[in-house]
């Protein structure tokens, strides 16, 4: 049996070792560092199944801000799986990392590129366990700072730099909101531990408005992380400018961690009716804006950015309906289909760019990639027998069970809109004639295995969700 905090430590050690090897040895194939990271992540993922239950552990003060319950373990696994998927994508993206840099060898910078996601991963895993505002803040900063570097990693590319600056400035603002909110809550309740805050809030004789104000500020900060409207302004430009694997990471990892924190923070606050109203409003705005803005997009990366806002909307519907199960399952489904679509995008866009036209006639250039993208788009749109559909099913179920019929009506319309823009990609793949250069696209064995695993996961979870429910209920 392993103690839960060892997991984060192991990830950090793995990242540090890779950085050290990168710094002290020069003449070797940098891709081995990537393989090492993958193997290490896989081992740590396995280790999550042998974690000692929390009750048997000592009641040291440490456990006042760190939780090792089933939910946090579940989200740690999501973080690990996402990171592994992102590193696989980085192999395909590697040729672009040093492009445009004067005097660079083909592999310069690659070592850090493989190491940085590991630090992000450690931050995400801490966020999954954080039950105290101090740890929430610290782990969030670890995630954000490593993302600053990753977003601007291709620093000779102006779009990437622009994205990095935008992300830096707006994240800093969000962090400001978070700290300010935490101080208000601390001032009103005298606690930073979420459980103790809940106890204080449910008591009487409390300055409730001050705590509520703090709660709203925290939600604003988290709204930045999960890309909820109206805190979404950064999303489209940052997603489009960042290196594609990083975009995938932002879109899955950052969002998953944001939602687990949101669930935990809201737990004490949701008893206040004003908070409910606020969240419903945010969910409606996010659903409508994300889906409508995605409709006219012709750049696939940007389309996926808006679709990521849209999916934040469905997740918020589940949050408002108090359904942790729906949130968790939806995030897993979202992980599978988003990683799948970004992985295909990297391969397809390498010669031609991210435009929708690069997908034209993909079914003839690479039937396998065409099918993978079809599965991803079908799942994102919510076609049955895919994980995306079961996720939507659970979200609708939760919303109807809690009588949020207004949200249901909005969601019906936005799902319909979603079919249009996801099927635009399908149309390009299968209907449109390929451009003049119809070279076959070569898929490396590693990527092929990853894609097959993602496709299989999408289908299996689409009809057999029980493993996820079991993992959550442990």
């Amino acid at each position: 049996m392993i103690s839960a905090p060892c997991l984060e430590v192991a990830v950090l050690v793995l990242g540090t070792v890779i950085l050290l090897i990168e710094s002290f040895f020069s003449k070797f194939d940098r891709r081995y560092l990537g393989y090492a990271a993958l193997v290490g992540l896989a081992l740590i993922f396995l280790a999550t199944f042998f974690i000692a239950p929390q009750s048997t552990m000592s009641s040291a003060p440490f456990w006042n801000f760190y939780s090792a319950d089933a939910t946090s373990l579940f989200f740690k696994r999501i973080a690990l799986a996402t990171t592994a998927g992102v590193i696989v994508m980085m192999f395909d993206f590697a040729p672009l990392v040093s492009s445009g840099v004067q005097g660079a060898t083909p592999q310069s910078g690659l070592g850090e590129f493989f190491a940085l996601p590991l630090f992000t991963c450690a931050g995400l895993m801490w966020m999954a366990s954080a039950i105290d505002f101090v740890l929430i803040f610290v782990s969030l900063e670890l995630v954000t700072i490593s993302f600053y570097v990753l977003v601007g990693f291709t620093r000779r590319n102006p779009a990437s730099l622009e994205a990095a600056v935008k992300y830096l400035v707006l994240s800093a603002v969000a962090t400001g909101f978070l700290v300010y909110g935490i101080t208000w809550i601390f001032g009103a309740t005298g606690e930073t531990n979420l459980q103790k805050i809940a106890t204080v809030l449910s008591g009487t004789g409390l300055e409730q408005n001050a705590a509520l104000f703090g709660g709203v500020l925290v939600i604003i900060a988290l709204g930045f992380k999960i890309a909820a409207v109206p805190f979404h302004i950064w999303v489209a430009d940052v997603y489009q400018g960042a290196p594609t694997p990083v975009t995938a990471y932002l879109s899955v990892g950052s969002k998953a961690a944001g939602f687990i924190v949101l669930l935990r923070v809201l737990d004490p606050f949701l008893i206040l009716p004003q908070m409910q109203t606020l969240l419903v409003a945010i969910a409606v705005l996010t659903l409508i804006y994300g889906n409508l803005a995605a409709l006219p997009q012709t750049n696939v990366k940007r389309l996926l950015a808006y679709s990521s806002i849209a999916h934040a909307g469905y997740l918020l519907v589940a949050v408002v309906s108090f359904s942790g199960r729906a949130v968790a399952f939806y995030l897993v489904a979202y992980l599978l289909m988003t990683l799948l679509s970004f992985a295909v995008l990297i391969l397809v866009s390498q010669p031609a760019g991210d435009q929708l036209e690069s997908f034209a006639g993909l079914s003839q250039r690479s039937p396998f990639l065409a099918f993978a993208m079809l599965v991803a788009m079908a799942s994102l749109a919510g076609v049955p027998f895919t994980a995306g559909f079961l996720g939507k099913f659970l979200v609708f179920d939760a919303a109807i069970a809690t009588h949020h019929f207004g949200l249901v009506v909005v969601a019906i319309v936005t799902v319909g809109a979603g079919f249009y823009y996801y099927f635009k990609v399908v149309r390009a793949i299968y209907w449109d004639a390929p451009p003049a250069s119809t070279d076959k696209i070569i898929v490396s064995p590693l990527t092929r295995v990853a894609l097959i695993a993602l496709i299989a996961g999408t289908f299996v979870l689409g009809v057999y969700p029980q493993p996820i429910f079991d993992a959550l209920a442990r």
Partner: protein
Amino acid sequence: MLLLLVTFTPIVAAILIMIGLPARLTAMAASVLTLLISAIIFLRFNATSGFQFVVTFPISPELGLNFALGVDGLSLLMILLGAIVLVAAVCVTGEIEHHENAFYACLLLIAGGAIGAFASLNLFFFYAFHELALIPTFLLIGIWGTGNRRAAAWKVTIYLALGSVILLVGLIMLYRAVPVSARSLDLRMLHAGQIPASLQSNIYLVLLIGFGILISLVPFHTWAPEAYASAPAPAAMLHAGVLKKFGLYGLLRLALPLLPDGARQWSGILLVLLLANIIYIGLVTIAQRRLDWMLGYSSVMHMGYIFLGIASANILGTTGAAILMFAHGLSIALLFGITGEIRKRVPSLDFDAMGGLAKAMPLAAFAFGLGAFAAIGLPGFANFAAEIMVVFGAFQNGFDYQHFHVFQWATLLALWGVVISAVYMLRAYRRTFFGSSAKSELVITDIRSGFRVPIALLVSVSLLLGFFPQIAVNRLMPTFRNYFSATQ
């Protein structure tokens, strides 16, 4: 076991074709196999007991989710329809210029999805199997369609996706309305009287709109004629013949037995809408100037009669509705199949540009005539037997000797639809096959002799049921008797 085979044969065949097996041969073998197995199920079916040939695999006890297949008289009839039309559709598929394997795979997926939906005993899979057909329909119309195919493909996809989501919400509302102790997605666990009357009205309305979009109930019908006019003939046969029946099947399977009070409350609105389907769409059909659009509208119009049977909410009317679903599937498939062949041979399907085709295509003319007579409801065809039952069932509803009520008036109005459909069908028949041919220099050959098989299949089954409707009635009666004994 047999049901698993009949459901998954088309789907597995579709996957095998995509992997690389010879497309036409595999599709033919799979469809014939499907038909054989469903015929065996049909013959071995015991009319007296409830769901049969049941297979169950548990999936998620906390959701009440399992994978369960089973048939009663109603689903049995629909599965048989799906298998027959699938064989016919594969038979009439001619040379496909590009991506032949994908074409057949899409056809098989549509049929497999429809059959799976009819066989499912679980709401989740009932819904999911139907949606399986969505992407194949989009691709079939978009890639291999004719005319304004891209716009039509978008329209049908968005419409059906939206209808499906509304339906999904309705199904979840239904699931949530059942008290916790009995809550399940399994159809066998759901009984009349579980859902409080006060909740039924809203759920029925959502289901009616969701299913209504899928069935092309007025005013949600505008996708249908355009899609069927643009779709390749086999796709139109399967979609209009089989897949569209899913919505009606759902109303008969769920809405009538589980939500009787809701059905009663909305029956007035439903009567108005279905009369619009019959009379208004009937007149629109007469006004059509192209054969394919005319057929598309006629299939929308005939949905009105099936709705009338469902609205009547008695054994006679619903049995008639079920048989009419079957009969209409056969006749519309035949008509779309022949029209697809005519489309390949003439430059335009405009009535003004055609004429005299019977001289060059006697077999096609004969088959189209049979299909048209069946669609009109000529005695001897299954459509006639079914329409008679529907009309009597509807008329009988709330009948007293003092004065006519809304159902009697509605039935009288609906009867005029028979005249309307005779007008447009016979006119189309005359203008397509008789009269003087507009372009005599065109060399037109008759349809392949291989076409005799699907034509004979569709017509013989229709005639068989027309002369011996009790074959179906015997199997359907226990199902509907259960519905109405529990609610009255």
